[in-house]
């Protein structure tokens, strides 16, 4: 069946799958958002445990979606996969380290004689809760803002920057999407807690945090989008290899006009 697809159809087909997986992943990042709020929303040992148990049965879904997302990118856009992962080495490694720490923490935290102590495993959850959404957001932002790399005639890529992805953290534009994804994951977690946990203290603290996190999300996301509308895009133009002024703005307008026209 797939053998008869044109390259364009295949690309579109894979893009739908990747988009779907990406959307599910962002949605499921509420687990990470929740982890970052363990100490903010839970003030007593009991409250902390309620919060962790509430998201504890969901962590595998985020984790396996990330694995599937990685595998699907590997299979469908290998040049992107090899260039981004091989180049932005440090950013991806930090993300992965944080997921390693997360995977054992739910299971090991409360177990007796767990070597590192309950508190350490809670800190592991916090580390993953902060770094994963933030750095995933920053990495996705680099797909728009570009990175400094070259490819040879075998299409083998080489990152030209010795910071290997860490430089992207210093860009305010990238950072704004990172903060947007992080605060969105918190918003999702708070809404989940408010529906899933029957505890007045947690509910009232959640309500307060909801306002703060939603505001941060709105500001950071809008600043990313607005800035994006005024930057040059990098279209693949084999002849000129030049940047395309206000590319994203034009795409946005085209989509918007197309949408209105169809209505």
């Amino acid at each position, binding site marked *: 069946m797939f053998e008869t697809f044109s390259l364009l159809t295949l690309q579109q087909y894979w893009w739908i799958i990747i988009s779907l997986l990406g959307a599910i992943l962002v949605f499921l990042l509420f687990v990470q958002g929740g982890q970052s709020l363990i100490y903010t929303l839970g003030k007593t040992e009991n409250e902390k445990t309620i919060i962790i148990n509430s998201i504890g*049965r969901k962590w595998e879904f985020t984790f396996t979606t990330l694995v599937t997302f990685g595998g699907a990118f590997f299979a469908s856009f290998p040049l992107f996969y090899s260039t981004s992962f091989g180049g932005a080495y440090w950013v991806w490694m930090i993300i992965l380290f944080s997921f390693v720490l997360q*995977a054992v923490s739910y299971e090991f935290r409360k177990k007796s004689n767990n070597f590192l102590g309950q508190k350490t495993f809670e800190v592991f959850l916090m580390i993953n809760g902060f770094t994963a959404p933030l750095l995933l957001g920053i990495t996705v932002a680099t797909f728009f803002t570009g990175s400094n790399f070259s490819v040879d005639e075998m299409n083998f890529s080489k990152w030209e920057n010795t910071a290997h992805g860490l430089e992207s953290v210093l860009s305010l534009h990238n950072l704004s999407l990172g903060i947007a994804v992080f605060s969105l994951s918190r918003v999702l977690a708070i809404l989940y807690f408010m529906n899933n946990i029957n505890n007045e203290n947690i509910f009232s603290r959640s309500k307060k945090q909801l306002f703060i996190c939603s505001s941060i999300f709105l500001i950071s996301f809008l600043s990313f989008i607005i800035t994006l509308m005024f930057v040059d895009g990098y279209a693949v133009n084999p002849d000129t290899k030049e940047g395309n002024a206000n590319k994203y703005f034009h795409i946005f307008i085209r989509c918007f006009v197309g949408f209105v026209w169809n209505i």
Partner: protein
Amino acid sequence: MDENLLELVNWSRAQFALTAMYHWLFVPLTLGITFIIAIMETIYYKTNDEKWKKITKFWMILFGINFAIGVATGIILEFQFGTNWSNYSWFVGDIFGAPLAIEGIMAFFLESTFIAVMFFGWNKVSKKFHLVSTWLVALGSNLSALWILVANAWMQHPVGMKFNTETARNEMVDFWEILFSPVAISKFLHTITSGYVLASIFVIGVSAWFLLKNREEFLAKKSILIAAIFGLSSSLFLAGTGDIAGHEIAQKQGMKLAAMEGLYKGENGASLVLFGLLDGDKKLKDENNGFVFKIEIPKALSFLANRDFDSFVPGIEDIVYGNKEHGFIPTSEKIIKGKLAIKSLKEYKSSKKNGDKIKEKSSLKIFEENFKYFGYGYLNSPESIIPNVPLVFYSFHIMVALGFYFIVFFILVLFFLKKDILQKNKWILYTSIWTVPLAYIASETGWIVAEVGRQPWVIQDLMTTSMAVSKIDASAVQITFFLFLSIFTALLIAEIKIMTTQIKNY
């Protein structure tokens, strides 16, 4: 190879080996114990005896601890293809990536969903549904192993693909050929059954500890019964699949087989080394046979390799320097052909760009004629196709010896259990406990044979390890290597402590 690249390749290999070996400490137990748990729960379902529910739940706790760390170490492996082996990822992305993506989906739908039911659903779903969930966890974990092993088998024996000269990469043309490649099937069966054997030994070892402490007699004896039967049948099957895997290696990776057997000069009616001590002074082409001493089974290697007791099995020297009589081309010639393939590919691309149709056609023809040896073009010397012989040889022989020991072990355990004299013979209980680390050693050495044995290839004959590596600083890989080492070691200590405490306090 320049020194910087060599250092980078070595550290990248070390890191992948470290993470893969840590991952493989946890996966085989998951693969096997899920089936043992499913069998136990089936007995509970059939008998409605609460004691069986208790047994099932006990092993489930240990499975849960092990599963979490298996998942944690697994994610790194998938993404390391991108971070540390990015050229490889590009070269074979749609072949290797597809099974990897399927593995993720399998894990997602089966493992994650039904594990939640398995752990938290005892009083929330029906007994039947719970039992089905437990079986699906076993099936799911084994099915997800299938895909990664198919991907690995493809690297050992690339089939079902075509090199695309436009993009300079391999593309899948026949998914089924990749999935049903004989190497993939034998690798899958051999690997998962090794997991069943390890899990059976684990269950017997823990149960033996209970018997030594005069505790949980019912749980221990019933667990030993199930694990010993499951383990014995698995280990017999394991020996069979090992023989098939050996035959496949002989047919597709002659150098690996030669290294496994320390065979330098090929011979007709070659013997299989049973025990042997390698001679460290052995040099290529000298008269030394490479051994200080060895005990052999006459003609067994020839039979393993070609199903013919008198057939010729090539040695390391035959493959490196060629053997006209038996049709082996010298590696130096393959290197020339490989370099020609690389050069003609470049010429093809440039002539296509310049619109030189004649040159385009002729260079494509030369490329296609020599593509079989493409990877050889990246080698510096014929001798560089030899893997680390002592590491492969000893790993192989330790694995095989332990494999046969396990068969005897299971028979002994079953015999003592049937006669009900396990507790009277404490030595068999102590042996059961000490066999647990041996099972892990056998499992790890198996992977050393598979992966070190195929060096310098990442993809047999097509891509070398040095060609596949991401061009990053060796120092960056060094740092992440030590980070992995410290994190994984800490987590391993935590896991062992938690597990032993759970067993002691049960």
